[in-house]
């Protein structure tokens, strides 16, 4: 049996965008297996409060079957019970390939699933090759490797920005509730969750991102300058590692190799010099704008439109001009 299982990440019954991108990757993997003579089914699994509703939504993306569980042990994400649930789904569904979005949850969870299946794991893939290998970035994106998983069972995490989100059509499969036996001894305890959510879109979902660097000078001026720009575009706000390290912006706004990897339609880098680590997180954006005082800043080399200017003068003017342009 070589069916493909997708870990469907959901919140309150809604499937995340990066999951939809992972479904596209899973469909490509299905095609890859077909060319090698297999006929796999695509199976989904979603857990936690709202999983039943999420399973209904998942079915519209063409899954042959979707397993769900709203067991109390799965109320909050914890690596041990979630890996047990996913392994149970893999076993019930006869799946030898498990695909997950490379979110912090997917990154945390999937190696445990890989051990359960004695599978090799390709992390953060950006492409599915017809010869059975996968493309993935290494060395902060300075290298793209073709990686083969040598084991019969395979685990794959997907970089959402590299795949278009799947489009829903009519449902054909069915959902079924999964019974999981949990090792409560090992489970661990969820203590608290502190959200940094705002009215603005999520970084990973945003069409436009405005990102600030250390040149913003302080947390007060960071928000004073960046918030109006974000508002005029309906954009998410990102930050460079330097800005986060200096305490100008919260940790999970960081864009880069070790933060979020984003690829919006428009990325405006303000006062960001363009270290390799930052470029690794945003260079696949469709249009990149850089505003920086230093004409030699490396960010200009990859920016579609560079403006050498003092951001404290340029930004208020930019907000006004965009307002005018938008009418």
């Amino acid at each position, binding site marked *: 049996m070589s069916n493909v299982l997708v870990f469907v990440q959901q919140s309150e019954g809604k499937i995340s965008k990066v999951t939809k991108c992972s479904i596209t990757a899973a469909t490509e993997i299905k095609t890859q297996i077909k060319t090698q003579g297999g006929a796999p089914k695509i199976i989904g699994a979603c857990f936690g409060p709202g999983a039943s509703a999420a399973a209904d939504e998942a079915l519209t993306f063409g899954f042959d079957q979707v397993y769900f569980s709203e067991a109390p042990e799965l109320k909050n994400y914890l690596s041990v019970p979630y890996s047990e649930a996913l392994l149970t789904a893999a076993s019930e569904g006869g799946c030898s390939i498990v695909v997950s979005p490379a979110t912090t949850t997917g990154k945390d969870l999937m190696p*445990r699933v890989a051990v359960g299946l004695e599978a*090799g794991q390709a992390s953060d893939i950006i492409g599915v090759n017809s010869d059975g290998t996968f493309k993935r970035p*290494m060395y902060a994106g300075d290298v793209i490797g073709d*990686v083969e998983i*040598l084991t019969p069972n395979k685990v794959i995490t997907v970089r959402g920005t590299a795949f278009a989100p799947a489009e829903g059509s009519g449902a054909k499969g069915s959902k079924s509730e999964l019974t999981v036996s949990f090792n409560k001894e090992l489970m*661990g305890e969820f203590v608290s969750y502190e959200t940094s959510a705002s009215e603005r879109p999520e970084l990973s979902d945003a069409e436009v991102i405005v990102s600030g660097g250390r040149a913003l000078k302080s947390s007060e001026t960071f928000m004073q300058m960046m918030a109006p720009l974000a508002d005029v575009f309906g954009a998410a706000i990102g930050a460079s590692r330097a800005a986060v390290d200096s305490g100008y912006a919260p*940790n999970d706004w960081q864009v880069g190799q070790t933060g979020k990897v984003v690829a919006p339609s428009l990325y405006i880098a303000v006062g960001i010099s363009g270290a390799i680590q930052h470029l690794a997180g945003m260079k696949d954006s469709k249009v990149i704008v850089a505003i920086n005082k230093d004409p030699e800043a490396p960010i200009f080399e990859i*920016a579609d439109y560079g403006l*050498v200017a003092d951001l404290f003068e340029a930004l208020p003017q930019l907000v006004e001009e965009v307002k005018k342009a938008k009418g």
Partner: protein
Amino acid sequence: MKILVPIKRVPDYEAKIKVKADGSGVETQDIKWIVNPFDEIAVEEALKLKEAGQATEVIVVSIGPEDTTQQLRYTMAMGADSGVLVKTDEYVDSDLASRILVEVFKKGGYGLIIMGKQAIDSDASQTPQLIAARLKVGQACFASKVALEGDSVTVTREVDGGLETIKIKCPCVVSTDLRLNQPRYASLPGIMKAKKKPLEELTLESLGVEAKTKLKVHKMVPPKSRQGGKKVDSVVALVAALKNEAKVI
């Protein structure tokens, strides 16, 4: 409690990485090697726990060629008590690393493993979780705060959209994120002392680990370069270009 800190030797993060012409790997000739920055944070955290009287001993371990002793000595100069080198010249993937580190862990009676959340060369972010799963213990990845209380550890994790706090029992594996701490520099007396600290050498054979990877990297290529570099001379020109040319306004 004894703490095991696995560290990886990686190319300096400021080095420009070049792919070999035949795509078989990256050029390593003129590379400056460093301790993976996330692992340095892990060493610092272990040392802090020791200084707070919550840990008795900090042991660093690495897998790699003979030269890797330099990175082990560096972390011993930071303050780690002793080091272990599992010597191999071969490619080690996350899975093989996890199987080696599990055997090292089993030899020592450790209460905690702290290590970086990812190595900045392979960027896989798998080994800590693989170790935890193989040992059938809990894991707390991407830590920005670690508090040891009795036989459990409370960890604040950097997750998408915020911070999550969980509590797990020791022994367990903690992986470190960027802002857990600011690693100290090795002092001169520390460097002198480190030369005399014990450094044990092991091999895959002596640990009984089969030298087999689950991944094979077939070909490496540089990423497609981006055509940028165009400058506009005013905010008005920028907005006009975004509206009329790029059509994103």
